[in-house]
């Protein structure tokens, strides 16, 4: 219960068409003290990202009008947003679904229903795998320096493909 307050001041964009689910995700993230913006579909997400650069995007896959894959493509195709980690959040739990998503370029894959209590750990594992160069800092900071303002920069460092020069 207590660790609910141990979250980082991360910024997240949640793309989800179903209102109840959207609310659950947002609440979970906020429970972890994150700053959350939402989008009801791909278009709204793209729109939101024009003036908002989150630490990561949580994106549902099955959405009307513009689904998760299309949204991912749009994010990647925009140089401004291309490096933002995009994590798929899907109720598709069949064998191959995860692999398919990762192969498409998603940085992570979380199946619904989410486990509220472990959701933050899951996120950390995913994002940690992207940002290898600072695992030590990241591991300790949530507990030791909760007050510190977000250090989004490390989190928004380029995806594994790009070699980061920072430290």
């Amino acid at each position, binding site marked *: *219960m207590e660790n*609910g307050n141990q979250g980082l001041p991360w910024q997240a964009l949640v793309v989800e068409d*179903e209102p*109840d*689910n959207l*609310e*659950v*995700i947002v*609440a*979970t993230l*906020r*429970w972890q003290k994150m700053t959350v913006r939402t989008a009801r579909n791909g278009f709204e997400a793209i729109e939101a990202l024009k003036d908002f650069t989150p630490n990561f995007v949580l994106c549902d896959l*099955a959405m009307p009008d513009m689904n998760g894959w299309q949204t991912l493509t749009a994010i990647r195709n925009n140089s401004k947003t291309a490096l933002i980690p995009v994590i798929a959040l*899907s*109720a*598709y*739990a*069949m*064998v191959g*679904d995860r692999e398919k998503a990762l192969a498409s370029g998603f940085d992570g894959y979380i*199946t*619904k*229903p*989410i*486990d*509220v*209590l472990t959701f933050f750990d899951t996120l950390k594992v995913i994002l940690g795998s992207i940002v290898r160069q600072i695992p030590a800092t990241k591991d300790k900071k949530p507990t030791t320096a909760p007050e510190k303002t977000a250090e989004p920069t490390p989190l928004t460092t380029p995806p594994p493909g790009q070699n980061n020069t920072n430290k």
Partner: protein
Amino acid sequence: MINRATWPLAIKLTLVMTVMIVLTVGAVTLLSIRREQATFRTDLEQQGELLLDSLTASGADLLYRLQLTSLQNLIGGLGTTKAIVAGWVYDAQGHVLADAFSPDSPLIGAVDDSGKNLVDSPTTVFNWQDNQLLAGKAVVLGRQTIGAFRIGLSTAPLEAKMITLRDEGLLVALVASLTGIVVSILLSRTLTEPLRILTSATERAAQGDLSQTASIRSHDEVAILANSFNTMVVRLRTTIQEMQQRTDEVRRSEQELKAANALAQESVRLKSEFLSAISHELRTPLNAILGFSDLLLVGMFGPLNEQQTTKVSRLKENGSRLLLLINDLLDLSRIEAGRVEVQQKPFAPHLLIDHLTEQMESLAVQNSLIFEKSVDPTLPESLVGDEQRLEQVIVNLVSNAIKFTREGSISLKVWPDTAAQRWLISVKDTGIGIPPHALDTIFEEFRQVEGGYSRPYQGTGLGLAITRNLVRLMGGKISVTSTLDVGSTFLVELPLVVAEMSKPTI
């Protein structure tokens, strides 16, 4: 062409058979004549011997007393028998005392000096001449040779018999030879003609004409051959027709198969999509249910009173069960769709069990149960199999056991049966047991024993079905024995494949 090929065989056969027949008949006749002649000679000699004996019997006393007239009468009386053509009586010195001849005998007036020889001979003396057999014998009384008798036996009856025999033999030989020649010709014809028919039939068959057969009316090997040939042709014809039919059928069924296959693939795809959609559609609301439950419980939306906490907890439990059900369903459908592959990799069973024991033990303790583990030390260090699936099986069985046991213990036992090339895992509980009527169906989907305990036995009812399917996939089998209110024992038998490396890499 055919005639030239056939005639020499017929002629050869005829020649060989004729020569053999003539030679055989000739040899047989010759032998028979020779034998008959020898028999007749012996017969005539025996006849002579008998006549001499009877002469001696009736003439010995006359000879002893030298009663010449009586002796002369005795000898002369022999002529009444046609076979006897001459007779002599000799005194002790071999001088002729009396004699008699048939009128045309060449011995009339001839000097006869054989008497001395006769009286000196202890046995009968035979002398074969042109047309007669001379048989003479000394007459001995006590130690005295008192003279001898001699008779001439005509060989005319013998000659007559010989002539008859020779004529018969010749006739038989001639008839046999002629018959033989005719038979030979017919035989060689009957032998070669069917062969010719057969040959031509074979040639036509070889050229692909299977519409005809060789008709041979005889009942010999050639006929058998012809029958075999005919049968073969018919079979060949039938086989070719069948092959054509089958080819057509195969072609047809190939198309059908392709269509069916496409259908099946489509069906699998549809089923998969359906499952995927179901899963998706169920998980989506569950996300909200479980998520809100958790958020409520962690006080995200403000503190809850006790009653609220209880209700939300139950809400979450039910949601969790629903999720489990969905997962199991997916699992099962994946297995049944053959989309689960069992790995064959080396693993360390001892380590696996140790690892699982921690997990199982804590689960058991949570339910106030004792967990016992026993692993046979002779179980190989390294086996080949699917460690993950194995773990799933064991966890399923132990979970199941815990679920249905209120008090007592859960025993996990693992041991090898090297002789049967298997290894076994048993999970024994002291639970509610399974009624006999349910033992058969316990491994089927959505089957649970309906027990009388107040505590609900949570579970999807798919665990044992999944377990059984997994065991089968691993090439093993699962069985259960149970006594109601005493407990149940699940036994898993798996193929024992020892990894080649003695020490598995972990």
